[in-house]
């Protein structure tokens, strides 16, 4: 019992620290990705390649004046960002990152807690996230903020339907609501993943899920709640300092959650795309080694003077990571973690890629798209899946 508490506290601390760092750096990554899409260098001043930029941002946000306008509905105004960030962080607690591992003689899951209704729990918590935005918009007593809040509640409700239906379809294949078992049923190889698996590959669900997830997280092209050319800053117009940061972090935390959910539901979680005997263990080493080679090469032909120093250092770090992946003791938990992070990261990259590519929807298009297209397709997909699963099973 005692060790249970200790382990839980340690796990919670680790997950929290990693998550917070990821949140901060995800934003750096996003800025870099979009900058490169638009052929500019992105953050470059604070630290090598702007690596310390997130730190600077955090300091800025904390030290800014925390203003509460006099005309707001104070209790709800203060509650809104708190709700947003709490609900966003809460779902992480049931998401498994890897299989069972042994640490110092204790066997534990790479997950804070396993619920037998994990999928529903994530749905429930994320469905409550809308309150942060809707209430923030209403309590601000500002017409732009109110419009943002209204838009977000209508949008979230509308897209939650196809989202839920898209989640239900792979659940029919896996026949469980526990996120851990979900990965178990997809283990082995890429053709066991729900997205490619018989009797009906869930490729349509996957696409519907991603589209709806973009809308649920208020990301481009569905970022109407904060459309800056129409609504100033939308629902968070009246928020400053850490309260603004809370909304900001909530958005990124939600992105991480839905990416994790997509990985777990459709992409086999932490299982490798092909069995270890065919060399999937070497993939991380090869990737990091390649990255190291590239960094060293660019270090020899630097675009900027400073790169002559930084890029070789990066290269050496990459080589080090590549070597770590070959340590037999660590492989049992590093490899699943790598695959999980790789898949989640790929989806996160898609989020940024879309943001750098697509324009925003018009509001009627947004609603028409989900009710007239996405929802019927999701229903059809669910029906076909259910029919085929019943036929085969």
């Amino acid at each position, binding site marked *: 019992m005692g060790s249970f508490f200790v382990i839980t506290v340690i796990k919670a601390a680790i997950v929290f620290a990693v998550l917070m760092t990821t949140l901060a750096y995800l934003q750096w990554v996003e800025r870099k990705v979009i900058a490169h899409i638009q052929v500019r260098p992105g953050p470059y001043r604070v630290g090598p390649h702007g690596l310390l930029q997130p730190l600077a941002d955090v300091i800025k946000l904390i030290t800014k004046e925390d203003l509460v306008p006099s005309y707001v509905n104070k209790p709800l105004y203060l509650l809104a960002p708190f709700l947003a960030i709490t609900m966003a962080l809460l779902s992480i607690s049931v998401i498994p990152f890897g299989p069972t591992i042994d640490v110092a003689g204790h066997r534990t899951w790479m997950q804070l807690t396993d619920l*037998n209704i994990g999928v529903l729990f994530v749905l429930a918590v994320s*469905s*409550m996230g809308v309150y942060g935005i809707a209430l923030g*918009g209403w309590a601000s007593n500002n017409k732009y903020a109110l419009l943002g809040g*209204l838009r977000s509640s209508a949008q979230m409700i509308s897209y939650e339907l196809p989202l*839920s239906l898209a989640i239900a379809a792979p659940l029919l294949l896996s026949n469980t609501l526990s996120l851990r078992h979900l990965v178990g049923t997809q283990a082995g190889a890429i053709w066991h993943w729900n997205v490619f698996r018989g009797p009906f590959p869930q490729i349509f669900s996957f696409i519907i899920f991603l589209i709806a997830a973009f809308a649920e997280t208020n990301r481009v092209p569905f970022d109407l709640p904060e459309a800056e050319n129409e609504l100033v800053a939308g629902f968070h117009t009246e928020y400053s300092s850490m309260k603004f940061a809370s909304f900001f972090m909530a958005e990124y935390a939600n992105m991480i959650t839905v990416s994790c959910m997509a990985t777990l539901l459709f992409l086999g979680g932490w299982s490798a795309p092909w069995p270890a005997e065919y060399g999937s263990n070497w993939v991380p080493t090869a990737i990091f080694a390649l990255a190291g080679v590239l960094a060293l090469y660019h270090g020899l032909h630097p675009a900027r003077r400073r790169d002559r120093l930084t890029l070789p250092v990066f290269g050496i770090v990459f080589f080090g990571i590549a070597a770590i992946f070959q340590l037999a003791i660590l492989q049992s938990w590093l490899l699943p973690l790598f695959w999980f992070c790789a898949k989640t990261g790929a989806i996160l990259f898609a989020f940024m890629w879309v943001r750098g590519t697509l324009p925003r929807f018009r509001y009627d298009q947004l609603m028409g798209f989900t009710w007239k297209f996405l929802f019927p397709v999701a229903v059809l997909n669910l029906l076909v899946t259910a029919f085929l699963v019943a036929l085969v099973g």
Partner: protein
Amino acid sequence: MLIDTVLFYIFAALVLGGGILTITRRNAVHSAMWLIVSLLGVAGLYLQQQAEFLFAVQIVLYVGGIMVLFLFVIMLVNLDQAARERQFNRHWFVALVAVAAVGAEIGYFIYRGRTGFHIAELGAPIAAPHALGNTEMLADTLFSEYLLPFEIASLLLLVAVVGAVVMAKKRIQ
């Protein structure tokens, strides 16, 4: 056991307190928020009964769906005017007396008939260990014993939806 009892009273307080505040707040948004608190309390009570499926569904449907819609309508329709007006009509005293009388009457009957309430004994199977999870058991019951009510409820919802559209759309022709 003590924790269970304490949690029960916390959830019960959420349900009742939320309910009372829902009907006494003048600001419609505040009322909606307290209703959400009340619904969350119910979800907590479900969880205490180890009905985790109902817990999740309660939150997804009521808190995450229906109440968001409520809030949307409240925010869309300007209710400030209504909030400023007197909310109770002139018959509130009569209503109060009537409610108190009926309440006392029913309370008396329930008190007299409390021995007829067998729910505590019926609760026994919940404590028994079961191989199937709550979700599976619920599904089995719903799709075998209660198949007809479950399916026919969809007709009820269809009627309600059609009715709402008939009432709300712009012109009959």
